[in-house]
């Protein structure tokens, strides 16, 4: 499912921005990768919700519906001694989860990320050395 979405997103990227600079295009591709990851993961995951919210926010320039804010989990300010701070910053939506669910989301996020990386790598490989 991930490949399907990602390939479609990639098509869109290449179709809509044929003349943009390389950097912008790579950013778009990266965003497409993350978006397809989030879509395929589904809304039942906190990190995918946070990612989708972020993309909608950026695209539509409107505040996300506050779904990710009112997660129901009391927002605890990160104490200085917490080693999970780095993880919270890395995983999308990680700042508002308790430690337990943060670990779970991290596991799922890592799984999806590795699938995405494998997919992209295989695509690049199949293109071959002439892919530049």
């Amino acid at each position, binding site marked *: 499912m991930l490949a399907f979405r990602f390939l479609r997103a990639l098509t869109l990227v290449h*179709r809509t921005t044929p003349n943009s600079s390389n950097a912008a295009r790579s950013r778009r591709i990266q965003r497409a990768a*993350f978006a397809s990851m989030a879509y395929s993961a589904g809304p039942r995951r906190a990190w995918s919700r946070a990612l989708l919210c972020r993309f909608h926010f950026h695209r539509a320039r409107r505040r996300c519906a506050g779904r990710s804010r009112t997660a129901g989990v009391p927002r605890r300010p990160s104490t200085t001694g917490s080693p999970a701070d780095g993880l919270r910053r890395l995983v999308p939506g990680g700042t508002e989860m308790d430690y337990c669910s943060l670990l779970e989301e991290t596991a799922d996020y*890592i799984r999806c990320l590795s699938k995405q990386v494998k997919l992209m790598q295989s695509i690049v490989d199949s293109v071959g050395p002439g892919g530049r």
Partner: protein
Amino acid sequence: MQPSSREMQGMAGSMNGGISRSSAVAQIALRELQNGHGGQQIPNSVPQASFDHGASGHDDFLDQMLSSLPSSWAELGNLKTPWDPPEAGQRLFSAGLAGESSPEEPSAAAAEGMRYPLYDESSLLANRLRQHQISGGSSPNGKGMMVHLDHQSQQQMLLPSLGRSPVASGDSGLLPLPLTLGTGGYDVDAPFKSLNPTGGEGLFNGLGGPLQRAQSAFGHPQGGASMPSQNFTAAAGAAAGGVGQAASASASASASAGGGTGPPRQKVRARRGQATDPHSIAERLRRERIADRMKALQELVPNANKTDKASMLDEIIDYVKFLQLQVKVLSMSRLGGAAAVAPLVADISSEGQGGAGSGGANSSGDSLTVTEHQVAKLMEEDMGSAMQYLQGKGLCLMPISLASAISTATACPPRPPSSSSLSSAGAGHLGHGILPGGLHPPNLTGDAPASPGVSALTAQSAMANGGAEAAKEAVTVSKA
């Protein structure tokens, strides 16, 4: 863990510099990450090394501790009276801090020796705690040790040592903290620096403070905060007298501070925790869940041989950063001529306008969607199998520009191009024109192209110059 963050930053900087090489860079990054952490463990201060490689460095650490003790005792002798806990505690911990922040062995060993002034019991206990923390298994011995420390008449242990180690009470209470905070790493310094207890009460408060932070170092946000205070109150209720309070507080501190992942600590709490039952049960459940999740994460992350919770967290963080970096690098590598393979739903519908192929295209539209899904799924696992699947269906993989060229070129029947042009065009494309039974575009012979029932997965290519010829070839292919 300052070196680790610096190392990551340095590596990230080098990564940004050399980002043009995609996979090699990413591999180097991973290797550097692994080396950085592997190599970092070794020069790290002794306490951390001993915490991380508990079983192996066990005896060595003990020997080192005991051998370094005479030197540390000299320093301790300079300290003031036993009941000057605040200053002595501060000095102890500043020394401990110095030992922790500087990776040099002598100072670290001395600090470590200072942290564990000659308590045979407590050093044994510390070692056992570490062992259990690392192994994660429960042991009645550990429990026994703790209980021993707890219920034994503390005066016997503490008072003789009180004369020798001035910060005995504060020490015993704060002893286990370095144990955990040594594993906690960089975030340890802040709580210790702020430790400033004033007198006995202040000592408990000070104990509660760093304990809270130490517990949060293991990620126990709210329950952890309540635990030490409850343990303290329980200890206060149970014991009689200042020393007894200090001792039981220290034992409970050791129980709660070490309760990160060790079942023996949970068992100790279960034994002593009659006064704090519901909280202890909730804490235990919570810790079990955390331990389960950590185990699942350990399986996901490569190089997960770290038995220490904090270093495992670091490893996880690094791995997530590495994966995100890989995504970034891969997206950069596919600029320009890079091909994007995408399902051609729209093109198929547009191509379905062709005469003879319309019925075929439309009827096969549904199956095509299914096929696309199938191929996409296969692509996730293995590109080769996806290609084989395509071949089996008699489909081809072609650049998107070709597909658009095909749809525009349906009106005029194109002439069969030479194989050489196709091969030159296909060099820069994802131009796998696949015949049933045949693989290479140059093998094709030209035929009159029929309607482009070119189903498929097409790809976009930058080299559109050969697109027209290749398109005709591809059309030919699909029809054939």
